[in-house]
């Protein structure tokens, strides 16, 4: 099966490979995997707490070319977006951009899951910083 030019391009020149400090309260980490092919994908994003803008994104993926291209593209797309905007990215957008064939759609699903997982992790971290306020809010209900 032939990969599309865009997949090959991302595969040969992956953007934003690397990692961020996962203990940083402003960094969200998403780790997802697909058992059918054994792929694992780690996506990390650093969010500016004031503006909610994703300032940095890094990934490391062990898997096929499509999985690498999907996560590389995902980091490119989320950078500069707000958290809410990033959460609207759909796997079908990635499929379209990279012209992924049907057998590789799960790679794009993985990338979408990784974005969501990373931002959930970030939200959880933000929430735990604000735990002091939560009991009061719960008491009002």
């Amino acid at each position, binding site marked *: 099966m032939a990969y599309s030019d865009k997949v090959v391009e991302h595969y040969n020149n992956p953007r934003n490979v690397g990692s961020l400090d996962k203990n940083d309260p402003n960094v969200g980490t998403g*780790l*997802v*995997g*697909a*058992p*059918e*092919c*054994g792929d*694992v994908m*780690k996506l990390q994003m650093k969010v500016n707490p004031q503006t909610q803008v994703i300032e940095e994104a890094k990934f*490391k993926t*062990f898997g096929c070319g499509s999985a690498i291209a999907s996560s590389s593209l995902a980091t490119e797309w989320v950078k500069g977006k707000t958290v809410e905007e990033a959460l609207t990215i759909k796997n079908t957008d990635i499929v379209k951009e990279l012209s992924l064939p049907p057998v590789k759609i*799960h790679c794009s699903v993985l990338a979408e899951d990784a974005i969501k997982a990373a931002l959930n992790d970030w939200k959880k971290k933000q929430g735990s910083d604000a735990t002091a306020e939560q009991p009061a809010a719960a008491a009002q209900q």
Partner: protein
Amino acid sequence: MTTVPIATEAFCWSCHAPHVGGHFCAACGKIQPLPRGADYFAFFGLPQKLWIDCAQLEQLFHQLSWKLHPDNFVCASEYERELSLERSSQLNDAYRALRDPIARVEYLLASGGMREEGAARQQAPPELLEEVFELNESLDDLRTARSRSLGTDGGKTAALKQRLEAEEKKFEAKLGEVDEELKRIAGEWDAALDAGADEAKRKALMARMNDVLNRRRYIRNLVANVQKELAEA
């Protein structure tokens, strides 16, 4: 039977006697076409249980191969030759699927619609991912070290190799645990069938087996990868 059978396979194609299943017509002995949606267990006349006596299965396989073999039909009609071929190839598929305990579970789940793409989202278990990621990183380190130094790095590759070997052992042990777990649930499945469990109960057991199979495949791929790398190192 009170309903009028629509499917033609309810009657022998040759003598039109009622046909309730089996490879041959009970009345005239002619070979019968495969019913639609026939399952491999039924092909051998077995219940859909996961514990199978392999010696018995092998014996059934040999008996059936002998009875269904196209050589027995060289003088028969073209239709019967076709049926013999069809049943013989089904026999081989069925035997391959049922003889291996893992393939047997996979087959059972597939026939229950559990293994289709998108039927149940195939997610990797989160507790495994961290370890999987680290193992992959070690593999990567080993590859890099090897391509840079070609073995002249004074023990660095050797140390990496050792670490990987230790990790590989760990994952092989995990594979053993997963197999044990699958065996346990398979036992529950057989007991549930004996007890006449309803659809919901059966589906729940299938879902549990599906989870274990996913985990198993993930670990097995990893172990295979590591073994390949180690062999080349």
